[in-house]
């Protein structure tokens, strides 16, 4: 979808939808929000809705960073300690690698 052809109010609604949608445990929507609307929010010359779009993009970015931190920490811990956790590790796994602890 080409943002060039949209009027500014529709850009704002789109950005808001993606921002609100990301709260439903969907951090990828925030990622898309940030990447897509970055130019709109910070590069383009000012227009009325730009301030709100800027806040949405900033907050999406924050939420995204939070998610990345949490997921990275959990994944590192799990990959490192799954073997030691024995039973708990096995019950948390979907596929268990064969032949290694």
């Amino acid at each position: 979808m080409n943002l060039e052809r949209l009027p500014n109010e529709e850009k704002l609604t789109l950005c808001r939808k993606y921002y609100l949608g990301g709260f439903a445990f969907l951090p990828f929507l925030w990622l898309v929000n940030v990447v897509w609307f970055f130019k709109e929010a910070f590069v383009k010359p000012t227009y009325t809705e730009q301030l709100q779009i800027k806040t949405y993009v900033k907050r999406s970015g924050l939420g995204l960073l939070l998610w990345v931190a949490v997921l990275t920490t959990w994944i590192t811990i799990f990959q490192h300690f799954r073997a030691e956790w024995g039973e708990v590790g096995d019950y948390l796994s979907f596929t268990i690698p064969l032949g290694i602890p």
Partner: protein
Amino acid sequence: MWKIDLESSKWVTFIVFWLFKNVSCNSVAQKIYVELNNTVPCVRLLNATHQIGCQSSISGDTGVIHVLESEADLEWPLSKGPNPPYMVLLESSLFTKSIMMKMKNASSRVAGVVVVPKTSPREFSPHTTCPNENTGRRISNLAHCNQTVWNPRGNGLSYEEFDFPVFSLKEDNETEVIKQCYFDHNRVVNGSGPQYPLCAMQLFSHMFAVTDTATCMRRSNIDFSSSPVMVCDPLGGYNVWAFIRPYNSTAFGHKENESVVIAAARLDSRAFFLQDSTGAEGSVSGFVTLLAAAQALRQATQEAPPTRNILFAFFHGEVFDYIGSSRMVYNMKNNKFVIDLDNVHSILEIGQVKTLRSGSNLFLHSDPVSRRNNTVDDEVTNLVNNLHSSTAGLNFSFVESGFSQPLPPSSFQRFLRARAIPGIVLADHQTAFNNRYYESFYDNAAHLNLTYPSNLSPEEQLEFVTDTAKSLTEVATAVARALFKQAGGNDSQVNNINADPKTVTQMLYGFLVRSNNSWFQAVMAPELKDVLREHSATTDANALTYLVQYLLANLTGTATNLTQSQCKKPDELPNESTYVYSYLWVQGMVPPNSTQRESFCVRTAVRRVMAVSPAFDLGDYVSKEYSTWTESQRKFIKARIFLVASRDLEMMTLGVGVAVLFTSLLVTYFVSTKADVLFSAVREPANAAY
């Protein structure tokens, strides 16, 4: 002339090429790899606490082949050699614990080990020094071989864990190919390293299970995965047993006023490579003797049945913490067997019986702890007396081993663990084992001195009575007579009980030399005749237990006149009952003048019952009471050799390829940016197509 347009010319080309494709096919893979088909891998086994055996990585382990010439030569793969990792090829004389442990400690430079079995070393036992020390009779001060070390030559190699694959080559041709490849490419010239390309071998034996039995059983049983992968299988086999007076097999539990003498022997054995087990002295001598004794008792027990019943029990899985006998004792204790422990009067077990020469002695082992009880002691003395008197007129004698000596590892120990039952274990060793190759691949026909004159055909060898067979026949006669007396049989009948040397020698030949012989074929069922393959039946648990079942059936059962269809459904006949007997349709011999076998139906009291450790029934995978051994599953086992190039050549090829990729990207970019300059052809007028 036809007009061949584009469409039909495509079809013609397709058909022409398809025809050529079916005519010849040349595989590049076949030009690179030489597959080794006749190999036996070392597999991973797990129990409640450990994993033992070998593991390869999931995409195989590759190493440059090195043929080891001596223990000092180990320096080359372990430290001096310039092209690690190495795949070490050993002859069997170098397959020792010290060499294997050195390689285990340097496993970053060793990709795998290949063993070529050749001449037997003087002694070699990869088993532990104290077999089954945790699951035998519970004795406080005599446990863990405090008093007698049963297997002093044991180096425990079978119970070590290696993280590289270890294979054994079975075929000489393949060994020659490997050695030729090694001599062509890998020889060290004047101290400097050999030049690339080098001969390398790749071994695949990726095992799925890890850590211990509890982990792998848990992983096999996890529910939510869409296709659960079975990661390990419990070890187990089949027990074969037969009463001389059979009971109704659906009536479990205690039988009033029934007293049973159990005559037991073990069926199985192992080697470092699980599929290589032979167990000539370790197990075959024992169960062949018991089978011959069962045959000898057939006539006498039918004419003058003794007061007590006799149960011939052949246990499988004994080497792995008494799987078979623990299953029978468990069934007896939990009313899942036709008798229970109260019905058992006494036990006579036949252990390792290799009689060296005529006039040598066999030893009677008993359990000193249970003999502290006077009633038990009296019964044991009675049994010993029966055994002594049974050797009258025979060429050997029984000698009691020392009174305070504990019982050697035997199935009897599991019965004692449940209850103090009087019993004797027969063995050819007084204290430590005489068997120099206990639970090893070298415990074979040659070790039992089974020698045949060289000019005999296989059928003549089958019939030839060797000296070993003669001495085992005498042991079987003594055992049969002792059992008859122990069961309360009439003394006047005793001297008519004689084992048949022809049966003994045929069984020894079949189990240790060649199982695909005419007698074994005659006793088996038609649908099982493929079970007898060229190599020895002791390697395959299924083949072994079927053979013992059918042999026992033929030796102790009766041939009937039933037809094949009647044999499958004998309950319809008035006098036959499948609750008491089992009916087996066997192939029978081929009479001399025809090609058709005379098959017949045997009515027998023999049962072949699956024996898996009770720990798996109870779900207790960390059990200290029962065997928890499992074997890992694996996808495939493969071995192949090929030539490898040096690392530098590989990197250079990769580098050139990457360079070509980037060059082509650059060229494409430039061409596309300057396209209007390069391709300034005459422009056709653009058709307004849209």
